[in-house]
Each structure stands twice: as structure tokens, then as C-alpha cells.
């Protein structure tokens, strides 16, 4: 039994630990070789990170839904709704941007997530169905409250800060994503509730018998997802200096891809927050890189799809799940 501890470091062990970062590195190297002067510049790399920040934020929230073995399809609509509402708070009510952001994230984002979680626990239906429903409902609400028109005329201070750059170098959206990721890493690694969420995702029956309150923790997970989606909404309206009613349509797919490419198990209980960031960056690199190489955008989805299936297949054969 003790031999397992001394076993030689195999490719399987390597893949288990470094699969996501390896994929990212390979892609950067490939695009770097193909377009050394345009792709591999500091400016472009920062641009990729900025472009990825919304995917990463949505992915960070999505991570918690997937950690429980569920899914949150409503993140894209949550992002649009909280963005539109916050924009209206600032434009129509003249609220101070900071206050508007706080209300947007905490009241709207967390509340929508809370609602998702409560619906899932109260009905016992799969999160897929509940959030498919709320995705449609929330999107409809966006159209209703904006009359399907973009909310523009956001305070300049808001778009400059949230959509601008710190010290003229680091884009604020990246900072928002990284700070959120840091907080959530702390939550998953150091907080008891994070530990409980992994337990719940691993085996909800065992979790219930171990004394973990299943309903409260499920609601917590979806609330976090809502908060992250709302943050993505803030970043989005700041970057565009307007709240588009169809903002983020279809982005839930990117969020799910980021989490899955980041090595989280679709069955729950397995995954790490930092890998979601890498997963999100991989999506950003593909889109940016293919553009640089001059591949038509028609092919970008194709590349994404192939990569997703390939990454999960490799995990299946070499990752931790292959040993059980």
C-alpha cells in the first residue's frame, strides 16, 4: 500500500496537475511562432486578458454551480439584467457609481442567484431546467425594463474607472476578475463553507448525513454565481459605456467551457478556482490568436468545440478520474 507514495512521476500525474496551464502554454507558443510580431506583444497579451475578463468572471460563478454537480445557464442573462439595472440607477436616478455598483452586485446579482438556488432546492428540479427557465425570464426582463434600447449616457467617471486602466497599464476589468478569483480561492480553500461545497458536490447524500445543510449551501453556491455574473455585468457596461439589452447572449457557453477546460468535473466535487482563470484565458487566446492568424470567425467556434472535447477526453484518459 505504501508503494503508491513512492511511485514514479508519470505523465498521468503531470497531466493531472498541469493540464490546463499546458494547453495555454502550447497555444501561446503556437500563435507566437505563427505571428511573433503581432501576437506575442505585451500590448496584445494584456488585451487578451482584458477580453477574457468577462468570460473569467462568469466562469468563476459558473464554477460553483458545476462544483455541486449542477449548472447555471442564467449567468448571461443575470449579467445583462444587473448591468441594465445598474446603468438605469446611474442614468435615470443619478445614483453615485459606487452606490450603483454595490446595489447592482449585492442586491441584483446575489438576489438573482439566491432565487435560482431557492428554486432548485424548493422544487428539487435539476439546476439545468431551473436556470434554463430563469435565463429566459431574466433576458425578457432586460428587454422589458430597457424597452429593448441600449441605456447610454453612463457617468464618465464610471466608465473611465471600471473600463479604464490602473496606472495606464493594467485594465481594471482584469483586476476585478483577479480580485474576485482571489476572494473565491480563499473561500474554497480556507473557508468551511467552501469545504462543505466540495463535500456536497462529491456526494450530496453523504453531505446530508455528515451534517451539511444541503439547501443553504446550494443557495450559497448559486448566490456566488449571481454575484460573479453581476460583476461581469458591471465590467461589460463600463467597457461599452452603455448597457445593451442583448449583452452577453450565449456567454453561458463560454463560462461553462472555461470551467470544464479548467479541469472541473461535470459531475461535481472536483475543480480549482485558479484553473478557471486559465480556462477563461485559453478561450481568449483562441479567439485572439485565430484573428491574428487571419482565420475567419466562422472557424473559431469550431476550434473551441474541438478543444473542449479534446481537453476533457485527455482528462478522462490521463487525469485523476482515470485512476478511480
Amino acid at each position, binding site marked *: 500500500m505504501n508503494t503508491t507514495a513512492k511511485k514514479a512521476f508519470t505523465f498521468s500525474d503531470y497531466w493531472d496537475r498541469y493540464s490546463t496551464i499546458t494547453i495555454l502554454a502550447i497555444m501561446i507558443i503556437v500563435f507566437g511562432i505563427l505571428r511573433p510580431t503581432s501576437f506575442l506583444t505585451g500590448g496584445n497579451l494584456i488585451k487578451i486578458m482584458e477580453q477574457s475578463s468577462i468570460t473569467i468572471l462568469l466562469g468563476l460563478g459558473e464554477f460553483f454551480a458545476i462544483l455541486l454537480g449542477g449548472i447555471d445557464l442564467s449567468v448571461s442573462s443575470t449579467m445583462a439584467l444587473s448591468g441594465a439595472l445598474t446603468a438605469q440607477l446611474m442614468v435615470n436616478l443619478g445614483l453615485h457609481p459606487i452606490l450603483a455598483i454595490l446595489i447592482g452586485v449585492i442586491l441584483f446579482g446575489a438576489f438573482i442567484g439566491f432565487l435560482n438556488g431557492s428554486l432548485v432546492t424548493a422544487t428539487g428540479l435539476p439546476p439545468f431546467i431551473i436556470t434554463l427557465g430563469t435565463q429566459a425570464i431574466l433576458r425578457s426582463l432586460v428587454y422589458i425594463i430597457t424597452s429593448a434600447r441600449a441605456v447610454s449616457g453612463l457617468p464618465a467617471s464610471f466608465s473611465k474607472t471600471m473600463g479604464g486602466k490602473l496606472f495606464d497599464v493594467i485594465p481594471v476589468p482584469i483586476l476585478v476578475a483577479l480580485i474576485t478569483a482571489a476572494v473565491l480561492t480563499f473561500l474554497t480553500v480556507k473557508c468551511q463553507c467552501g469545504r462543505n461545497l466540495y463535500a456536497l458536490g462529491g456526494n450530496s447524500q453523504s453531505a446530508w448525513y455528515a*451534517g451539511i445543510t444541503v439547501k443553504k449551501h446550494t443557495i450559497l453556491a448559486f448566490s456566488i454565481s449571481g454575484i460573479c455574473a453581476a460583476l461581469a455585468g458591471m465590467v461589460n457596461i463600463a467597457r461599452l459605456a452603455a448597457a445593451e439589452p442583448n449583452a452577453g447572449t450565449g456567454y453561458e457557453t463560454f463560462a461553462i467551457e472555461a470551467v470544464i477546460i479548467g479541469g472541473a468535473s461535470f459531475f461535481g466535487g472536483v475543480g480549482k478556482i485558479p484553473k478557471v482563470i486559465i480556462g477563461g484565458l485559453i478561450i481568449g487566446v483562441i479567439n485572439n490568436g485565430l484573428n491574428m492568424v487571419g482565420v475567419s470567425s466562422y472557424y473559431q467556434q469550431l476550434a473551441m468545440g474541438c478543444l473542449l472535447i479534446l481537453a476533457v477526453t485527455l482528462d478522462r484518459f490521463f487525469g485523476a478520474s482515470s485512476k478511480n
Partner: protein
Amino acid sequence: MEPIIQMKEITKRFPGVVALNRISFDVRPGEVHVLLGENGAGKSTLMKVLSGAYRPDEGTICLGGKEYSQLTPHLSAEGGISIIYQELSVVNWLDIRENIFMGRLPMKQIGPIRVVDYGEMNTRTTELLKKVNLSSRKPTTSVGDLSISEKQMVEIAKSVAFNAKVIVMDEPTSSLTEEEVQKLFVIIRQLKEEGKGVVFISHKLSEIFEIGDRITIMKDGGYVGTYQVADLTTDDMIRLMVGREIKGTYQHPPEDNFEFGNVIFECKNLTRKDGKAKDVSFSLRRGEILGFSGLVGAGRSETMCAIYGAAPKSSGEIWLHGKQLSIKNPYQALRQGIGLVTENRRETGFFQNFSNKRNISIASQLKKSGCEGLIGLVNGAEEQQIAEKERTEIQIKCASLEQLTAQLSGGNQQKVILGKWMAAGVQLLIFDEPTKGIDVGTKSEIYKLMRGLADEGIGVIVVSSEMPELLGLCDRIAVMAGGRITGMYDVADATEEKLAKAATGESA
């Protein structure tokens, strides 16, 4: 009379155990042959050999005038053997006729194509339903709308439709009302008259006397004998079914003059919302191990789940160390010092995605945290320390604390779970089938650990279907039947006969 089926000296071995040891069993036309034995006596294994699911290691089976060394499911069905399992195998979303003719739909030719002949199906189903006294139901009724008793009748109709010669009923009465049982018996008598053989498996002795002709008794996979039911008394049956040597005891020997302390735990008039436990009262003294005996489904695990807060109760009081507890969910049980080692380790005991360290520390860390586990930090150093301590104290054999618990042997997984509760500082620990699927050596280690807990003043309750385990470990044994406590014995007075009798609900 020539038997329809004859099984001779069947032996079936599984790794480490002999599940069937030279069992002989035959069924004659027009008789009800009862198969009696405790949980784990080998009845189900024998029936699986009969259905062709298991291949016997030795022995022969005569069916339809031919001798076989093993049956296949196909041969078994062709030979007219039909088994109705306790968990009925009807498909709820299909209607009655589709259930009856599943896989053998009557077909008719329309021009070049063959289609399902619904007319034929309806006529034949109506006939069959009349036969099993279910004429009140239409052939097109969805099976999901039927009661359990009616579903059973549909299964019997299915057996009849396929010309079954032997119909095996595995505990058919376990979830029926008295009235439904009588209806079933009417059908069984009818089947007898038609010359079919019925194998009837039941723990309810009164039913055996009512319906049985011959009886074969099994014990620990061995063959006790085949008798005429009329020649036996209740006591004979119980004596033949149990009565074996008890290997090793873990009680304090009498010369120790060990004295139990005050009452530390009390359960008063506990009734579950779903009625699976009714008016259950018992108490536990310091230093004592209390066992719960009874048949599967008697309400033992159900009672423990209600105490632990994992299932809702409608009334009853829980007292621990003189304080009345209010427990609405397992979290509150954990906070107030009650732990439950569940019956199914894999499904409800530990986390497959967690290391040994995390599985051991989860309960103690959760107990410390606030707001139902939502607030609080994980203390990594303390976690390590707790896990190390339990690992050495209860000798968990694992490669490392970082190893996944799922990779350990069953016994060591159970030790991890035990360590989890010990680290959480429980005052009362309930064990549900604590040694299920655990090897003999580890079993005795776990018994010693349990006795050690009791000696430390922690309340220990054990639910077990293995009577020797209860007799060898417990100081007192409660017996449950039908959700109620039907007997309470000091171990000195308890015998397997008494326990078995109380478990069948014969007398208290």
C-alpha cells in the same frame, strides 16, 4: 409426484465465503414450498441460481426431465420458472397489458408488415386480470397508478401469461396490508389448483402456517432440512432457523463486576412522520452498548435516522445527559453530540472526492463553524493534527492522509468514519450495520473500538441484522417489528430464538 424442478446439493462460493453449502430444494406441482432463513442465510442466492443469474460451483438442477450443471436466464424462463422479487420489476410508465407482454408482444400481419396486435393483447389481458381478481382495472391502466398489491397481481398475471410452472415469490407480503395478504393467498391457492408450484419466501411464521405445504429451512448458507409445515411448531421453526455458536464476545466478563452508570440517553415515544417508527422508547446507561435486532424494514434504521434528524419525526423527545435536545437536521445532531455511522458507507458515509484527512476532519470542523457551517475558517494545522491522532489511535491503515478514502478497504473506510465522529467529540454514536462487508479481523477491531467508546462514557447504539454480532457485543438488545419495539432483553437472557420470535412479531 414428480417434481417440476429439483436442485441437488447446490454449492456456491464467493471469494471468502460459502454462500450455499450443498443445498437441496425441489418444487412439486400444486404445492406451496416455503423457504425460511434469516437475513443472509442464502435464500436469495439460491433463487438467483434458480433464475440462472448465478452459476453454482457444484450440484445439479433437474428441469423438464433434463439435468443441468447450471441454468441460464433463458433456460430458466423456458423451463417455466418465474420469480417475483420483493422490489417489483414492473415498469410504472407502461400500462398493464404492455407490462404483461413486455418483450413478447403478440403480432399480426397487415400486408407486408408485422404490427402489434393490440386487440389480442387486450382480450388476453382482460382474461388474465379476471384470473388474478383484478377485473376492476382496465388493460390500458398505467401501472404507476396501481397499489403495490395490484402491481404484484400484474406480475403474477405476467407469470401466468408465460405458462410459468414454478412461481417464486420473494417476501411478497412484506408491504401488504392484512386484507391484501388474504387476496394474495386466494390467488396462490388458485395457482396450486392449476398444478403450479409456488415458492414462498417469508419471515412471517403465521403466514407460513396458513399457506405453506412443505418448508425448507436454511441457516448460514447451509441446508437444515425440508419438512411438512404441519409437522412443525413455531418454536421448531425458530430453533431450526437460528441456533448457532457465538464466536467471541466483547462484553465485560461477569467476574469484572462492571456496573453501568446513570442513564445518559433517552428516547421517549418517538414516532416518525411517515409512520416507519411508532412510539419508540428506550434508554441507554453509561458504559452500556444497546443493540437493535429485527428484520430488514422493521424500523430500526428508520428510528435511528429520526433520532439523528435525518428524517422528520411527528412526536417524541430526545434526552442526552439530562438535557432535552431539539434536532431537526443532522447538523443540529452533530452540534449537540450525536453521530450516526450509516449503513451504506459509499452512498452516505464518506466523500469519494476527499482525502482521508478531509474525511476525518469534516465533522469536527463543521461542528466548530457557525451559521450551519456557512461561516468559519478551515484550520489546516488542526486538521492535520486531528487526522494524525485518529489515524494512530484507531490504526487506520492508509498510504497517507492525503490518499483518497475511496481507495481504502471497507474496514479502513469504516475506521475513517469512526475517526470522524470521535474527532467531533460525540456523546452518543449510533452504528447501523457497522461490520457489513468488513473482513473478520477488522470486525473484531471495530468491536473493540466500540467497547472502548462505551467504557469512556460515550453512548453506543448498534443496529445489526447479525444476531451473533449483537449477542457478542451488546449489553442489552431491543427487538423491533413493524416500527415498534417488540422486545427488550438483557444479553444474559437473550437467545437467538427469543430475538427471532420477537422479530417476527409473534410475541413480546
